[in-house]
């Protein structure tokens, strides 16, 4: 184990002094280059080698340790607020083994171990083998330090340099090397146009991020709101940068196809959808799916579905409303039908799948045909005359209109759907009349079902009505009885009074 102590003890080994100014130059020897290689007992020399963009005159031949500028708050002597915030379990005395002292011990040991060999990455397992503490605490501290670039951070090790990180490393190098000489690696700031990494939580910014030109910091929306930036900044120093999903990561055709397949299979289970698509988070999938033009939604499904697709595309083109509506219902080809019943019916039929819907339609149509349309009409008419008629008429109109639209659309939009091959389009044309009939029947049955529903409701209300009438009659009866009682009472009263008067007269006379 390399335990190169500086030849003269820099400071007493057991004390933990405050951040000292650097030891006097006489002590600095080439072996001090391994000042980073601190023996376990001395903790005092390491703060001296911290070459954050501080103007400390660092020894020219000491090994420099770089940490990013957003970690400037860090010091080996104490625990800063940032650490308390990010690792609260050590400071809320909920568990006896997790206390600030233990935290400091773990943190300092990890950092020292890393600094012994700053150019190579240190793994969690190496660290945990050398620490007498429970491994989960060690892991948490390790992850925290890693995220903040306090360990495993070196400009050379970064594979995808981002502009602000480059600048940080350069400035830190400048500050460090200015006494020494020109910095060796002057990597030009490479700006990747589509990637934004948050400076504090190291997550890729998706929706909006906040960039501060003042000190070249980029924060994701969450960190900005939380105030996770350094002391010198205020919220006004940040300007908002919008990032749209598409610009950041383009969805390839293949991914879109996968997404649609997955949605068809898993419906609302976005976890599985995200898994199926591969490489996209749930949120990405959902947002992209919403933004998809409606016509593509059921692509890849049976032709019935594709027929509805084309209808939608047509409607979309007509209405030019496609991408602006935010959260449209996923699987409802006729979703923007003004009639909610139709919308629901369409949604249900799409959900159930074409085969099921067809079978249901068949059965319903045969049943209905037995009943007969006219009968159904009369039935409704009998209920509440005008209303029933109106409903049937309206539904019929809608059904017809949709059917007409559909037939128009399907003919005209055959060639417009770029996802379909020409063969499929042709076969689509061939099965056009069948589909038309199917659609008609289905819509009809759906309408029937809805009307039956309404009918039942009306019956229910009628019952309630009659009940109320009965109660009203009862009330009236009671009222009559009461009146009769009152009358009786009055009569009795009068008669008693009369007898009383007579008795009084009698006594007076007699």
């Amino acid at each position, binding site marked *: 184990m390399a335990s190169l102590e500086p030849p003269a003890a820099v400071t007493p080994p057991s004390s933990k002094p405050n951040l000292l100014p650097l030891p006097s130059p006489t002590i600095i020897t080439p072996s001090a280059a391994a000042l980073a290689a601190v023996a376990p007992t001395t903790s005092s020399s390491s703060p001296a080698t911290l070459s954050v963009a501080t103007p400390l005159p660092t020894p020219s031949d000491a090994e420099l340790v770089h940490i990013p500028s957003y970690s400037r708050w860090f010091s080996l002597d104490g625990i800063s607020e940032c650490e308390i915030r990010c690792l609260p379990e050590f400071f809320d005395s909920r*568990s006896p083994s997790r206390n600030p002292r233990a935290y400091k011990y773990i943190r300092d040991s990890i950092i020292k171990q890393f600094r012994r060999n700053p150019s190579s990455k240190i793994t969690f397992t190496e660290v*945990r*083998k050398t620490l007498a*503490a*429970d491994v989960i605490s060690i*892991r948490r501290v390790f992850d925290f330090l890693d995220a903040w670039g306090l360990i495993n951070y070196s400009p050379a090790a970064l594979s995808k340099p981002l502009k602000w990180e480059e600048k940080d490393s350069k400035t830190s190098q400048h500050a460090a090397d200015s006494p020494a000489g020109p910095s060796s690696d002057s990597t030009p700031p490479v700006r990747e146009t589509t990637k934004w990494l948050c400076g504090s939580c190291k997550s890729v910014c998706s929706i909006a991020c906040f960039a501060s030109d003042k000190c070249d910091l980029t924060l994701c929306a969450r960190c900005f709101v939380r105030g996770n930036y350094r002391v010198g900044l205020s919220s006004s120093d940040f300007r908002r940068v919008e990032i749209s999903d598409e610009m950041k990561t383009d969805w390839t055709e293949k991914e879109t196809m996968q997404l649609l397949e997955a949605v068809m299979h898993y419906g609302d289970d976005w976890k599985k959808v995200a898994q199926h698509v591969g490489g996209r988070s749930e949120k990405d999938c959902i947002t992209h799916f919403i933004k998809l033009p409606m016509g593509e939604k059921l692509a890849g499904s049976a032709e019935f579905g594709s027929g509805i697709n084309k209808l939608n595309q047509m409607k979309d083109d007509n209405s030019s409303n496609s991408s602006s509506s935010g959260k449209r219902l996923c699987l409802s080809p006729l979703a923007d039908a003004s009639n909610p019943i139709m919308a629901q019916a369409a949604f249900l039929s799409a959900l159930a799948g074409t085969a099921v819907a067809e079978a249901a339609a068949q059965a319903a149509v045969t049943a209905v045909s037995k009943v007969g349309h006219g009968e159904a009409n009369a039935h409704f008419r009998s209920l509440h005359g005008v209303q029933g008629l109106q409903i049937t008429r309206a539904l019929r109109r809608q059904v017809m209109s949709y059917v007409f639209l559909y037939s128009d659309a399907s003919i005209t939009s055959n060639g417009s759907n770029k996802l379909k091959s020409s063969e499929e389009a042709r076969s689509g044309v061939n099965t056009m009349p069948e589909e038309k009939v199917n659609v008609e029947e289905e819509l009809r049955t759906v309408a029937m079902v809805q009307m039956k529903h309404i009918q039942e409701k009306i019956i229910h209300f009628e019952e309630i009505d009659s009940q109320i009438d009965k109660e009203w009659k009862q009330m009236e009866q009671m009222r009559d009885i009461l009146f009769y009682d009152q009358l009786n009472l009055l009569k009795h009263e009068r008669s008693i009074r009369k007898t009383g008067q007579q008795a009084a007269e009698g006594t007076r006379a007699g």
Partner: protein
Amino acid sequence: MKPLPSTSSKTPVKFRMPTSENLVPIRLDIEVGGQRFKDAFTWNISDPDSEVSVFAKRTQKDLKLPLAFATQIAQSIQTQQTEFRSYKGQEMLTGEKIVPIKLDLRVNRTLIKDQFLWDLNNFDSDPEEFSKTFCNDLGIEDPEVGPAVAFAIREQLYEIAIQSVATARESRNAKKGRRGEYSSISRSTGAALDLMKLFSNRYSGVRKRKEWDVFEPMVDMLSNEEVAALESMVERKPR
């Protein structure tokens, strides 16, 4: 500081590790496809179970082990966890419990032999702290020794705690005959009784001179060949 319970109390206490934190020693010894992975560390039993798989994956990635290790590691940890938890509700006797703890371990190139007494009633005890001081005092430079020492101590404490659970159960079962109760308790606190005898001799806590050698720690640094020889010996044994 928690006040220590009276030394002669035989009231049963809920099972827990007799240390200030409820950390469990976990030992891993997994062999997958010819590769053997041995490890030992302490685990905080109150941490959520999701940590197990995360830790297993991390270890597997860091050590560049084949993927099968991750699941095995997770399984092993979970079994040991559940084993510990199965003792959880039960009671253990904490009578007079000063037990000898022996250290006899080899970490990389450091060989350690030591023996000392440990108070089982002291629930504030901290093996980690002990091992830190141990390494500092003996000038051990290998940082992996500390955790290994702490782990060894913890393991032995765990064993003893399990035994005390067993004795508590025994004593409860044998409550019928007072004779039986006496004998079982006296068996378990045999070690303690000896110590009482020891201390009662001189009314001082200082050991007899002839026992100083027994209780002195011995740290030895091995050379590479000796290490290789020891390892091959160990591996040959289970085969």
